[in-house]
């Protein structure tokens, strides 16, 4: 099966129902995308598929064949993603950092869809869990991005 990830095409040997997460991590060796729950509950595994935030732990690979997959490893190649990372640094968002690949993905996908999201938009889009409780910092960073625009 052929998967297009970060603008490269990979020939992957895995069953069609294998979660995208494990193909990214094990078959392709990109470990920035995290496993937290395997049940779409936490969001640590978030990637973008055709620009839409997607929880890779519940995404069978045969459902994303031919689509553009972006993982955290390529986030800074995206101008919006780069801005998000800059704001993440400016606001010193991460603590343990385990959920943050997913948080950055969620924020990037939001800002790619809506340049100046409202408070409601932010609350609706930023739903990933963070056990360290960096929610205030995430909110501040996204608000900053929303007000300044993502570009």
């Amino acid at each position: 099966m052929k998967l297009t990830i970060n603008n490269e095409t990979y020939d992957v040997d895995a069953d069609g129902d294998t979660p995208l997460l494990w193909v990214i991590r094990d078959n392709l060796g990109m470990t920035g995308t995290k496993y937290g729950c395997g049940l779409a509950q936490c969001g640590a595994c978030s990637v973008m598929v055709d620009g839409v935030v997607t929880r890779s732990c519940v995404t069978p690979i045969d459902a994303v064949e031919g689509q553009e997959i972006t993982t955290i490893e390529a986030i800074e190649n995206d101008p919006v993603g780069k801005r998000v990372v800059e704001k993440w640094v400016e606001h010193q968002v991460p603590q343990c950092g385990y959920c943050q690949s997913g948080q950055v993905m969620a924020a990037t996908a939001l800002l790619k869809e809506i340049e100046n999201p409202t408070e409601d938009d932010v609350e609706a889009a930023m739903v990933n869990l963070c056990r360290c409780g960096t929610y205030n910092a995430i909110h501040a960073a996204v608000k900053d991005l929303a007000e300044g625009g993502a570009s």
Partner: protein
Amino acid sequence: MKKLFLTVLGVVVVGAAGTAWIATHTPSSPFDNVTASAPSEDLIARGEYVARLGDCVACHTTPDGKAFAGGLEMGTPLGSIFTTNITPDPETGIGNYSLADFDRALRHGVAADGHRLYPAMPYPSYDKMTDGDIEALYAYFMEGVEPVSQANKPTEIEEPLNMRWPLALWNVVFTEGEVYQAKASEDGMWNRGAYLVQGPGHCGSCHTPRGPAMNEVALDESSPEYLSGALLDGWYAPSLRNDPNIGLGRWSEEDVYAYLKNGRNEHGVVFGSMVEAFNNSTQFMSDDDLMSIAHYLKSLPADPDYDGPVWAYDEATADDLSRDVADKVPGARTYAANCAFCHGRDGLGQNEWIPPLAGVSSMLAPEAESAINVTLNGSPRVIANGVPDSYRMPPYREHLSDAQMAEVLTYARSAWGNHGDAVSEEEVAALRSHTDPASIDVIILQMR
């Protein structure tokens, strides 16, 4: 705890005089004067297959227990009953049953000691089974099943409602008492399918509506109500007729076959109580039998008056879920945060691995119970060919309030062209209070 439909006991209307004979009469069996000879391996193997067709294991085995030793709790409004030991143990099981005794239990609901079985045992369907199948099944239970000494648990139904003789009257009224008769006008495949569906498969137990005495209102295709969809124990078992919305109207015979064989197809994945039927029974049926079932079911006409306008996919909904409008549509935001990651903004699911919500019976039927139940409680693991599913539906009861759940289900039942009725907070609350989350354990009930 398995909850079944036994509101029957309080409901049965008991005629006055002249009932005593019926109540105490032991029905006859074609095997009354037959002494079963030592069965061949072949017969035992055939019997095992019949046991799969009838899904005996689902009710007569507990996940932690020995095969067919019984003990599964079934909740009824009157108190719990427990399934019985049907291993060949002579003391606690059915080891002393003659073939005729066995037949009477299977097809007439009468135990060897003469007491009446509760119709949780689907003998109104099993009475259509052929003598040959009964004989094979008997051979299997006597020779192919390990005897287990495990005493039956007494029913928790209290006096006087624990009296069983009224069931005999119920039987007179609500069972046909006759082996399946092939229809000459139909081909062999159709007749085989009809036999499996009406007889051992007892599909009507869940999929046919029940009357005031909890009787199935129809037992074969002669009635348009047969397999037309029913509410049972917190689940809506959809129509298995050709209704495009609430039934199989948009499925091909191959789709039906794949669903019963693999537990999934492009239209959906087994969930709720159908998981047990798939895990323990349908996947073990032969391809010919499954195709026969599909062929028969696809011959059952739709009821357009009840089914309503035919569902058609509406692409506009996906746009509702885009960030900028989701807030304005009640439930859309909850859907986006909790449901869309698996079922998609487009409601189409993920190939056959995660079912669509667009155009499925649980979203189109007037009865919303299945939609509510599966959202509250998730679904048991689907185990195909010994391999557990890669994706399971989690319970959302701890995440969504009654109001949120009602809103998101109302949304999903009106999105993508769906036209199911709105779901109320009260409906959610009612189901929440008497249901439990599905187990996440990979449960494979062993038959040997």
